[in-house]
């Protein structure tokens, strides 16, 4: 190797120091980062990845502390540099984190904050010059109309857009190396794929070495030249990605690879639809929901945000019905309609032959009993100062179980069923892991013996291992109680594993409904293909992102242009797509998709 490494980490160890003692988080971490290298670091949650990525930029705050070791950059140990000497070095050491929306001051325009950073680390930089450079870079990361976006506030940026802006923030000073900690994790798959492509491009253009930390092996293996596998705070394996996947050495790596969901391989699970017996459990008929939001740029104007548009489908008893789409596509608004947290503006939601918007009193209570929700965020969906027993008993009280002994008995039975120990009955949710918290949420929903559980991104915050366990639990509960599940998710791999029928949403519309096999092997709608092309997977892709998706993000649901809503990102869009809006058309026997291409194909429908 002719060039010396950009960064040398030697025997790095980090500890957690609390009153109850010291616990090792990282130990014996040593590696070199060569110029222009992309070094992937992978590990499960809790393996110390984030701590490591922070240690590399000297961002270790109490109760964490560096126990030993060094991070050498330009023959200086940056862990020991006083803040005054470290600060000028920030020009060359860049960091992008996993939380783009929280990374900038919400009260100041994005551009101004990037300029502020440049001027802080490059003394004497002219303000106008910095601004010119930022606008140019915003354009380079393909943020549309960068000169205007420069003056907008963080809350006006989408997550993907913000992550691009933060990449600009990191690269604006031509750093020698960049630490990217889980940068794609909060992003939608199609946007994440774009951000990844962008990062690779930019690191080449700016000659930057990258430490790329992620919990997703497919993402790392696509990006990195070399991969370090981190388990329990130690490096257990270091390989090129190809070799790592072919011949994993360490048991942890083997497990990690085995847990990666299979989409198209023979090993992929087959989810059959249950026999359709009788009437649908719940039908949504041509439902529309529009929210009015005050328009800031006008005197008394309102914007109509069209969150759900003309959605129609039925869910039959015993089904696992999936609703997928990217953030902002109207999934959660649709959940609110299905669970009657809100009523549709037009159209109706029918259950047992009755429009649920018209229910009230005892009938409504009965409906609520049959339809229970399990929400996404395991941390905010449980009251922190209520014992777990009381949380689970809450719904029983509402639904008129007056005997305390009966409630307790029922709660304990449900806790047993979902795999929570009875000892937790009097505990607060404080010390529970995310997985256990979701079990409490499931127990709270199950305690009323509902017919339908609506899972709004219930598994998104859990890692693969936990997801596996909970999905197993769900199928046990389904077998025992004959439940129907509606899964609302952005995770195509999860949906592939459990749902028998799937509706794909884009900008408030259902663009395709099909059975599992049909959707994944022969999707009718170009957007479904785009989603499939962006799934992080180690398999050979059936659909390549380059062929399926144009650069960009979904348009805003405010003031939608006429025509097909996907036309602006669809590589196959033609004249008619910009003028007329396609409706769901039968595509094959068990699928429907809203696309003109299917019509023009006429009877010749791909099998």
């Amino acid at each position: 190797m002719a060039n010396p490494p950009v960064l040398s980490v030697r025997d790095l160890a980090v500890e957690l120091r609390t009153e109850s003692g010291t616990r090792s988080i990282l130990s014996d971490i040593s590696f070199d980062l060569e110029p222009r290298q992309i070094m992937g670091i992978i590990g499960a949650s809790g393996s110390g990845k984030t701590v490591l990525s922070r240690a590399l930029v000297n961002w270790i705050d109490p109760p964490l502390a560096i126990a030993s070791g060094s991070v050498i950059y330009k023959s200086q140990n940056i862990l020991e540099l006083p803040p005054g000497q470290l600060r000028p070095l920030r020009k060359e050491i860049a960091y992008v984190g996993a939380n783009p929306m929280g990374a900038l001051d919400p009260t100041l325009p994005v551009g101004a904050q990037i300029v502020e950073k440049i001027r802080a680390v490059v003394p004497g930089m002219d303000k106008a010059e910095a601004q010119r450079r930022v606008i140019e870079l915003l354009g380079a990361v393909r943020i549309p109309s960068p000169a205007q976006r420069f003056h907008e506030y963080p809350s006006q940026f989408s997550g993907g857009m913000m992550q691009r802006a933060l990449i600009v923030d990191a690269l604006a000073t031509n750093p020698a190396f960049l630490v990217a900690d889980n940068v794609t994790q909060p992003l939608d798959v199609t946007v994440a794929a774009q951000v990844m492509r962008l990062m690779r491009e930019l690191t080449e253009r700016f000659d930057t070495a990258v430490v790329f930390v992620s919990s997703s092996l497919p993402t790392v293996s696509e990006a990195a030249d070399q991969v370090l596998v981190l388990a329990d705070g130690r490096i257990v394996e270091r390989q090129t990605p190809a070799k790592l996947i072919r011949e994993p050495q360490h048991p942890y790596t083997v497990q990690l690879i085995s847990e990666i969901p299979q989409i198209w391989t023979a090993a992929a699970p087959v989810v059959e639809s249950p026999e359709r017996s009788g009437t649908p459990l719940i039908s949504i008929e041509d439902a529309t929901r529009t929210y009015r939001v005050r328009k800031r740029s006008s005197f008394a104007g309102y914007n109509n945000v069209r969150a759900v548009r003309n959605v129609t489908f039925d869910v039959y008893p015993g089904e696992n019905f999936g609703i997928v789409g990217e953030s902002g596509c109207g999934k959660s608004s649709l959940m609110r309609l299905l669970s009657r947290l809100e009523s549709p503006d037009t159209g109706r939601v029918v259950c047992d032959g009755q429009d649920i918007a018209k229910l009230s009193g005892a009938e409504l209570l009965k409906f609520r009993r049959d339809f229970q929700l399990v929400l996404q965020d395991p941390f905010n969906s449980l009251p922190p100062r209520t014992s777990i027993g009381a949380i689970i008993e809450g719904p029983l009280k509402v639904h008129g179980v007056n005997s305390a002994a009966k409630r307790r008995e029922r709660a304990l039975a449900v806790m047993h069923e979902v795999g929570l120990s009875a000892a937790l009955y009097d505990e607060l949710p404080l010390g529970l892991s995310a997985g256990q918290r979701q079990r409490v949420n499931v127990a709270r929903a199950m305690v009323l013996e509902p017919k339908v559980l609506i899972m709004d991104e219930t598994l998104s915050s859990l890692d693969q291992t936990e997801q596996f366990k909970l999905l197993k639990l769900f199928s046990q509960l389904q077998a025992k109680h004959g439940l129907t599940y509606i899964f609302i998710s952005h995770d195509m791999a999860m949906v592939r594993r459990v749902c028998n029928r799937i509706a794909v949403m884009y900008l408030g519309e259902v663009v395709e409904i099909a059975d599992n096999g049909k959707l994944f092997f022969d999707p009718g709608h170009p957007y479904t293909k785009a989603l499939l092309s962006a799934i992080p997977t180690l398999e050979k892709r059936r659909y390549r992102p380059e062929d399926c998706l144009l650069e960009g993000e979904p348009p805003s649901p405010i003031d939608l242009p006429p025509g097909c809503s996907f036309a602006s990102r669809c590589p196959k869009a033609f004249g008619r797509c910009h003028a007329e809006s396609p409706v769901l058309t039968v595509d094959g026997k068990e699928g429907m998709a809203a696309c003109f291409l299917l019509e023009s194909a006429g009877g010749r429908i791909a099998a």
Partner: protein
Amino acid sequence: MFILSFLVRRLLQGALIIFLVTLLIFTLLRVVPGDPVRLMAGGMAPEALIEQIAKQMGLRDPILVQFGRYMAGVVQGDLGQSFVRPASGAATGGSGFSDASRSDRAEVLTLIADALPMTLQLAALAIAFALAFSFLVGVPGGLAPNRWPDRLAFYVSSIFVSLPNFWLGIVLALLFSVKLGWLPAIGYKGFAYTILPAIVLAIELAPVLIRNLTGSLASVMQSPFIAVARVRGLGRQRIVYGHALRNASVPLLNLLGIQISGLLGGVLIVEFIFDYPGLGLLTVNAVMQRDFPLIQGIAIVSSAIFVLINIGVDLIATLIDPRLEY
């Protein structure tokens, strides 16, 4: 455009609030016991004369009719005339019945216009003192949660909140005015007379501001964007003064808007103690003399001030934090 729409909306709402406050005060004043005509005319005036004056003044009409008449004047900028004060000077009333002074009673608007600037000056100085002090104590407290500056801020605000303003006013007057002779205390003959009452009011305002500032600053300092700012290479000064305080000032501003109403209450007592010729003293005297038009006028003006200040506060808050919607 946003600002214009905001102002029109909020000013209309404000007008409605002021109207309701006026209606409430007007009704309450007329159902409480005590006949103002008796007070005006004096204890010795004959019953028939009192009835006659009352009729002339329209005080025997139904309350809604009286209110309508009053509001018709208010929208033209006429708040009526004081029942008891002559245009020329000191308050009359009491037992003597002198017909002469009644003929040119003081305009309520004039009385308020004389007193209001004094109170605004006092309030502005009090808020300036309170803010300066809160920042001095609260910012270090917010930057060092659970360490000594935080505890100091807590103790200081606990002590301040426990000091009754009437007691503090008297003690400060005794100390600085009588014993040390540094500051004048009673009446008003120049700007220096504002300082002592302003300090008393500031000490009343400061504890809540300090608690709010330490709390919100401490929580803003926990935000991810503050932690990341250091890694991005911003200096400590910039992070604290450019970003953390900016974000922490929004809750402080909202609190200040509410505190102003408390200030208007505090002004009553403090002005009375220091014999400071402001709106507070005017109110105390008006209430004691059952000077209905004056009380109403003060109520309208104070509620208008309160409404305007809160509109201003919300406007500034939306300018600081563009995510806010009011």
